[in-house]
C-alpha cells in the first residue's frame, strides 16, 4: 500500500500542501517542547540538558522501528522510501560547520525559524546570518562545486555500507541509543545545574 505518494494513493500534486501541514505541526511541537530556547539547545554541548539528543534519537528510533514493522506487515514498501544521497566529504565538512554554528548560535536552522516566530532577537540575528551564508555560498558556488558534487556515494544507508541485516542493525541501534540516554542522564547529574 504505502508509501502513499509514490504509489499514487495521494497525488504528487499534494506534496507541498502536506509539507506545509507537517511543517506547521513540527514547528508547533518544537516550540511547545521548548526547542525555541537557545539555552536548552546548547545544553547538549555543556552537559546540562540532553533533550535535543533524546528527542531526535527517539524520533529516529520510532520512525525506524515503525517503518520496518509496516514493511514487514506489507503496509509500506521500504524499498520505495526516499533515501537522501550521500556526498561524503560535503556532508562531513557541512556537518562540522553546522555544528560550530549550532554551539555558537544556540540554534539549528529549524529551531531558529521557530524562535523567530515567537520574536526572539538572537534568533532573528541567527536567521540573518543564515541568509548571508546562503548568499556567500551561492555567489562562490564555483569554488564549492567540486566539494558539493564530489565523493558521491549514491542513495546509501548504514545497512548498505555495513552490509548487515537491517533487523539486527535496528536492535543494536536501539540498545546503543538507550545506553546513550542513560549515559547522558549520568553526565547531567554530575554537571552543575544551570538555571535557564
Amino acid at each position, binding site marked *: 500500500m504505502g508509501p502513499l505518494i509514490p504509489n499514487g494513493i495521494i497525488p504528487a500534486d499534494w506534496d507541498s500542501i502536506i509539507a506545509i501541514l507537517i511543517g506547521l505541526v513540527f514547528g508547533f511541537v518544537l516550540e511547545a517542547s521548548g526547542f525555541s530556547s537557545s539555552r536548552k539547545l546548547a545544553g547538549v554541548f555543556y552537559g546540562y540538558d540532553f533533550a535535543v539528543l533524546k528527542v531526535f534519537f527517539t524520533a529516529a528510533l520510532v520512525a525506524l*522501528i515503525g517503518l520496518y514493522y509496516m514493511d514487514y506487515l506489507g503496509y509500506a514498501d521500504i524499498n520505495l522510501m526516499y533515501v537522501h544521497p550521500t556526498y561524503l566529504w560535503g556532508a562531513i565538512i557541512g556537518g562540522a560547520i553546522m555544528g560550530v554554528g549550532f554551539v555558537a548560535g544556540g540554534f539549528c536552522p529549524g529551531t531558529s525559524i521557530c524562535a523567530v516566530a515567537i520574536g526572539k532577537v538572537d534568533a532573528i540575528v541567527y536567521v540573518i546570518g543564515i541568509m548571508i551564508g546562503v548568499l556567500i555560498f551561492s555567489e562562490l558556488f564555483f569554488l564549492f562545486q567540486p566539494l558539493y558534487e564530489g565523493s558521491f556515494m549514491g542513495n546509501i544507508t548504514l545497512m548498505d555500507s555495513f552490509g548487515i541485516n537491517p533487523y*539486527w542493525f535496528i536492535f543494536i*541501534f*536501539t540498545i546503543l541509543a*538507550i545506553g546513550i540516554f542513560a549515559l547522558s542522564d549520568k553526565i547531567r547529574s554530575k554537571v552543575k545545574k544551570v538555571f535557564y
Partner: protein
Amino acid sequence: MVKKKVAKFLALRYKILALIFIILAGGLVLLPKYKKHEGIKPEELLNNVINPERYISTDALAHKIISKDPSILLVDVRSEEDYNNYTISNALNIPFSKLLNEENEIYLNQDQYDLVFFSNDNFYADQAWILCNRLGYKNIKVLEGGINQWFLTILNPPVPTENMAAIDFEQYNFRKAASMHFGVAYPEQTKEVKEPEVKAVPKKVVTIEKKKEVPTEGGC
C-alpha cells in the same frame, strides 16, 4: 494511597519506555522472515490476465506487418527447430525455456516496442506473457490462436459462402490480399494468359499472270 502507587509507577516511566523499545526492536529480529513478493501485485496481475486487450488478433497483426508498423516486435516463443521451420516474417526467436535468461531481458524489459508473443497455439505464449507481466514488463501482447490461427485465417482463409454478410467478403478479400503479401499463390493468380488463337486462313492462290510479251511496235 492510589496517588502514591501512580507516582511510584511514573517514576519508572523512562525505564518502561526503554523496555518497550527494546522489545519492539527485538521483535523485528525474532520475527520469522518470509521472502518478499517481487514484481507487480497479485491483484494487478489478475486484472491484466482477465483483460482481453492483452490479445492481438491475426487480422490486426497482419495489418500492422503489411503497413510496416515500426512499433511491433514479434517474439516466437517456440523451439528453435520450429522457428527455423516456419515463423512469421521478422520474428525474433526466444524459446520459452530460455525466456528468463539474462541476455533476453534487453528485448523483453523495454517500453519502445509492442511485443507480440506467439507459439503454435496461445498456450506457451500465454505462459510467457504471465511470467513477463509478473515481472512488470510492459507493452506485451499475445497473438490470439498463435501460428495455427495465423495459418487458418491469414494464410489459408476460408472462402465465404454466398449467404454470408458483405463484411465477411471484405474480410476475406483482406485476408486473401494479406496472404498474397506473405507469399501464398492462388490458382487464379497464376492463370496462364492464353494467346489469342490465330485462325488459319485458307491461302488464296494468287496466280501471277505472266505478262504477255508484246512485240515492240513501231516507234518514233
